[in-house]
């Protein structure tokens, strides 16, 4: 029984691994080349998807409320900033070329989420910028920064493939 369960989990991990790998490749991102490490992270994503109903970052504490945790659903809103600053996202599922090739050593990095959420709370109210004469609102993908001027955000980000819930009204 337990063997069957672990087999089932293995196939689930393989399935998600393939999807994550494909999306990373298509979006111009690199996964951590350490296969067993990456697999362990994908396992965490499978566990969290079963537990919470969404793929919360395995290295962060999920609340169980998807709307509250949307910023930390993998790929998280902080991936790109951490890649730029540290060469890896917080859990190190995604890495830069420099880290992947071993030119830059992976160091423990701080989690910017609490600080970013704090900042967002403060900024709220000031963020609604109005540029008169715009015929469409501009939506911004909170994961990759893609901008779309249209009445509603796209169903899926054409760049990084996240769902429309990850878009915020930018202008």
């Amino acid at each position, binding site marked *: 029984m337990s063997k069957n369960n672990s087999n089932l989990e293995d196939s689930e991990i393989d399935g998600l691994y393939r999807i994550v790998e494909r999306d990373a490749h298509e979006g111009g991102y690199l996964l951590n080349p350490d296969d067993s*490490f990456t697999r*362990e*992270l994908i*396992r*965490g994503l499978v*566990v*969290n998807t079963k537990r919470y109903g969404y793929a919360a970052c*395995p*290295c*962060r*504490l*999920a609340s169980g409320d998807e709307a509250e945790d949307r910023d930390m659903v993998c790929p998280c809103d902080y991936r790109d900033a951490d890649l730029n600053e540290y060469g890896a996202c917080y*859990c*190190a599922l995604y890495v830069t070329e420099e880290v992947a090739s071993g030119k830059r050593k992976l*160091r*423990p*990095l*701080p*989690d*910017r*989420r*609490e*600080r970013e959420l704090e900042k967002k709370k403060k900024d709220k109210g000031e963020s609604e910028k109005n540029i008169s004469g715009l015929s469409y609102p501009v939506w911004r993908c909170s994961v990759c920064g893609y901008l779309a001027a249209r009445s509603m955000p796209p169903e899926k980000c054409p760049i990084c493939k996240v769902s429309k819930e990850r878009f915020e009204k930018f202008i």
Partner: protein
Amino acid sequence: MFDIMTLFCILGGKQRMKFDNFTRVEGDSCGTIQLFGLSTCIWCKKTKEYLNSKGIEYYYVFVDLLNESEKEEAKKLIKKWNNDISYPTIIINESRSVIGFDEDEIDREIARNE
């Protein structure tokens, strides 16, 4: 096989635990080492394995497996040492902390034995 760290560990004292959801891992006493982690977090797993490899006594808890009120309590305890409330967080003798999996810092902070 009697390095400086082991010596510090043997001299180390014990403190009472403020949080009762910890699981104890047996080993040489190095003061009170508390590890707050997540069961899904690979860096927490690496930290645990590293502490295991040192053969020292420590207490760990996987915060994601606690009930809601215990989670809140754990987060409050972590926040005292780590404003980001991130995992893993190690608290040593209730006097200092190591945030993230950093082997050198873990060694250094445990050896300080204050």
